[in-house]
Every structure is written in C-alpha cells, then in structure tokens.
C-alpha cells in the first residue's frame, strides 16, 4: 500500500487531505465537547430556529396585506430583535471552544508547513488568477502557475471537508443566523 502511494508523483497531496480529514474530525469533536452538547447551546439553537420560522410566517402574512399592519410591523421588529440577540448569544457561547479549535488549526498548519515548505504537493489543471495564485504558489520556486503549494490545497480541504462534516453531523449554524449567506464558511467560531 505504502509503495503504491509513493509511486504517485504527487502523493503528498493525499497526506495533506488525510491530515485535513483527521483535523476536521478532531475540531468537531472539540466543538461537540465544549459547545454542542451543552444545554445552553441546545436551547439557544432551538429559540433561533423557532424565531426564524415565526419571522418567516409573519413576513409572509405581512406581504399578503393582512389588516393591522402597524402592530404587525412592530411584532416583526420584536421577533427580529429577539433573533439577533439569540444569534449574538450563540456566537458568544462559542468563543471558548473557538480559541481551542483555532489553536489546533494553527498547530496543524505549522506542522504541514514544516513538512511541505517549498514543495509543490499537487498540480493545478488551470492557471489561477492573481490573488489565488499568491496562495497557490506560496513559497514555491519557479514560475509555473500550475504548481500548487500545501496552503491552497489545505484551504480547499478545510472548507469542503469541514463544511460538509458540520452539515452531516447537524452542527452547521442555523439558517436564521447572520453570515449564513453565499459563502458560508465552516462555523467561524469553531475555526
């Protein structure tokens, strides 16, 4: 198995992916231990879900032009304020574990950097644009834009693996929270 893997020119990429997968599980494990299993997180999550659904129903009713529009608007504002407060409290509750997870990620990145510094771990099937190339060609010799450093590969692994893992385990942030938009990163407080 080891000889088969080492026969690939870019077998280092598999090591980066493997380490990313293990790190993702480790980070979610830490987050579960420090946040997700606590009763305060569960109650905050539940109140955010309820407030989001209530807000949706009220806004749908509002758009259909139901009578008593002024009081309806006030109620919507109250629910929105409550939703923002709950989201803020949820963010605060994740600070402690967020710091631990950030430390783990920092250490793992440092380890990967020391292992693969100056080495192209994979080959890109496209030439990346300026800003992306700064990350993908970070620390690499030569001018070949398709040489890819560990940093870019690790970035792709982190986003794809951790986002899907959080989704699969049910730890993704609720849809009602701010920041769950076009570019939802893995829960930022656990980064």
């Amino acid at each position, binding site marked *: 198995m080891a000889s088969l893997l080492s026969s*690939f020119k870019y077998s280092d*990429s598999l090591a980066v992916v493997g380490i990313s997968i293990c790190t993702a599980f480790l980070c979610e494990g830490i987050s579960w231990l420090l946040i997700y299993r606590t009763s305060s997180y569960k109650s905050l999550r539940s109140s955010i879900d309820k407030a989001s659904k209530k807000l949706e129903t009220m806004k749908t009713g509002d758009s259909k032009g139901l009578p008593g529009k002024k009081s309806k608007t006030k109620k919507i504002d109250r629910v929105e304020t409550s939703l923002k407060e709950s989201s803020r409290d949820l963010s605060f509750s994740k600070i402690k574990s967020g710091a631990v997870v950030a430390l783990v990620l920092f250490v793992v990145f440092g380890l990967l950097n020391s292992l693969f510094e100056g080495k192209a771990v994979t080959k890109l*099937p496209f030439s990346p644009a300026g800003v992306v190339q700064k990350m993908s060609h970070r620390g690499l010799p030569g001018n070949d834009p398709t040489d890819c450093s560990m940093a870019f590969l690790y970035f792709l692994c982190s986003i*794809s693996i951790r986002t899907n893992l959080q989704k699969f385990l049910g730890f993704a942030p609720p849809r009602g929270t701010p920041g769950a938009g076009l570019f939802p990163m893995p829960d930022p407080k656990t980064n």
Partner: protein
Amino acid sequence: MREGKSVKFNIQQQQQSGHISQFKFAKLLDPEASWDKDQLGDVLHWIRQVVALVCGLLWGAVPFIGAIWIVVFLVLSSGIIYGYYSIILKIDEEDFGGHGALLQDGLFASLTLFLLVWILIYSLAHF
C-alpha cells in the same frame, strides 16, 4: 409463542423502516410533497455536493484543463439544481426566499469540493 411474537415484531419494524426509506426517497421526486425551508435547503446542498464529486472525478479523469471548466461546472450544477426544484419538485421559489436563496445553498462548499477532487484526480492520474 414469545419468540414468534418477537420475530413478527422485528419483521414489522423492518417493514416500517423499509417503508420510511421508500417514503423519504419518494418525497425527493414527488411534486405534490410539502417542503420545509430547512429540509429543501439540505436536499439541495447534498445534491450540489454529489454533482461536485461526480464532476471533479470526470474532469480530473479525462482530463479537462483550463479555468473555463470551473465556469462549466458552476453553470451545470446550478442548472441541475434549478431544474430539480422548478421542474421536478415544481416549487414556488417565492415561498423559499427566491431563486437566489435556493441556488446558493451549498454553492461554495460544492465549488471547493469540486476543485479539490478535480485537482487530486488530475495530479494523481496524469503525473
């Protein structure tokens, strides 16, 4: 007698879980089914991830080279999602926050997954 009852109970449980799985998959193709915003968002997210995985494997195996194939993937996966919720599920997008909200579910994660798989397969299979 008791063994007979427990065997019957197990068979009933298995039939129920079989019925439940059939029900869940049937709902994915049922235009009459009612959808919760979260449920639909999750389904669209996972469909995008599957499309990203398949495209990444295919693009890397052929191989397709050039940044244009990233655009092709984005158009293809968005087209599949749009076709799924508008043609197969016949959903009124206004009830779920509009086309933007439905099309953005899982978009970024699928793009990074697609790039990861494409890059890996390309590097490992062709060098």
